[in-house]
């Protein structure tokens, strides 16, 4: 509970900060901090239900502080959390490079998902993100991902049991063990 609240507080502050910085920086150059926190949380947070709830809450806050439709970030943050959680089970996401590559890839998919959902629900017609803005933003997200992951580790460690010590790659038996 304490860890959840700590991450929520951190995420909420990050989203507010991102909105403030967006007033000065060109949008592609702003790291999507809310998104990065959610994907850092995926392999680290112990409870799936708790993690999904946090992702949804942070998504809703992003909806309130952005020009998206209410519910758009909520939905896509949950998907991002799910994808990161699943990837954390299959892949070894420790280390700067794997984290950056994974965050960059997911950031690209996230951008495309936003374009699809906006086209479908807002009826504005599908438009690919402008290539330069898209690539810049993916690179910025990739660069910031290890920093955000380290910050999430710190907050989780500070708030309670040290989840960062949990191995990110889990081996689960597929059948019964005799």
């Amino acid at each position, binding site marked *: 509970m304490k860890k959840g609240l700590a991450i929520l507080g951190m995420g*909420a*502050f990050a*989203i*507010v*900060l*991102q*909105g*403030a*910085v*967006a*007033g*000065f920086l*060109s*949008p*592609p150059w*702003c790291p*999507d901090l*809310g998104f990065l926190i959610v994907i850092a949380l995926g392999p680290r947070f112990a409870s*799936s*239900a708790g993690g*999904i*709830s946090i992702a*949804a809450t942070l*998504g809703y*806050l*992003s*909806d*309130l*502080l*952005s*020009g*998206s*439709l*209410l*519910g*758009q*970030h*909520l*939905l896509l943050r*949950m998907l991002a959390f*799910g994808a990161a959680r699943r990837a954390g089970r299959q892949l070894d996401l420790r280390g700067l490079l794997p984290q950056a590559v994974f965050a960059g890839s997911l950031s690209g998919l996230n*951008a495309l998902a*936003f*374009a699809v*959902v*906006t086209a479908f*629900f*807002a*009826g*504005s017609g599908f*438009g690919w*993100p*402008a290539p330069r*803005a898209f690539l810049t*933003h993916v690179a910025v997200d990739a660069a910031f991902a290890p920093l955000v992951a380290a910050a999430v580790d710190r907050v989780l460690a500070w708030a309670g049991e040290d989840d960062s010590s949990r191995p990110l790659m889990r081996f689960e038996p597929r059948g019964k063990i005799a």
Partner: protein
Amino acid sequence: MGDFGRRLRTAILVAALVAVALVSMVSDRRALLDGGRELPWGVGALVDVARSLQKIITLPMDFLGDRWDHYLALVGVGEENVHLRERISFLAEENLQLREALVASGRLAQIAEMREGFEIPMLPSELVGGDASPWFRSVSFDRGRAHGVRSGMPVISEDGLVGLVTAASRYSARAMLLLDRQSAVDGTVQRSRARGIVRGRGVDDLEFEFVVRGGDARVGDVIITSGLGGVYPKGLRIGRITGVSDPGDRLIQIATIAPAVDFGRLEQVFVMLRRGPTMELLYESEERDELAEAAPSRPTS
């Protein structure tokens, strides 16, 4: 069983949240089509707190920007000043001549009277933040319902059209910029009066779609609002054409527009405290519906 129960609970939670997200998006889309959303009290208070925090965060950056603008970026100001003074004296002279001509024709008093009826009250407002998502283009500012701001009101700056208020809480509001993918404005080429739709592309320029037959748009032409969409008043400057595509055998031609407003340097905006006729109609019908719902139902015989 414990594990199954946990998985089931998670699945139910995910399904419920997905349903909430889908319903929210559909209802929010309807609200936007009806001119925007007025945030409920609790949510609005949360947004106001966030905007206050954003304002505090931006204070040091504002301070640095201000120092830069007032002390470090003054190279060439002297030369510009001389040029502007010359321009002012030229315009003052021209203004005087026009006034004289109007007075001579006896129409000045008549025009002044008419202007009072047309003038739209403007509310100056400071920007407090950009969009919390890189895939949308909107800004938030420090005036809200308490100051008379309502969804559907146009937002302008001294350079031209900025966008439209799409959400308002008590002490702050959010405006969708022209650059946003969801933005579409009915525009006119000032020179040829060719009409078309100005659309945002999510990047720093806009596109102007117009019908090839009869449409005449060239590089350098100024695009203004046509006033025909019923949302924005006529004559607000949108931007200047920087490129026109080759239509080939298509009916629709697309021109690229550089916006009149430099959105990267936007600090202060003016909210036009009057909604366009389309918005008023939408709100009137909405208010009528609310009144009808609030009225006690008559027993049917």
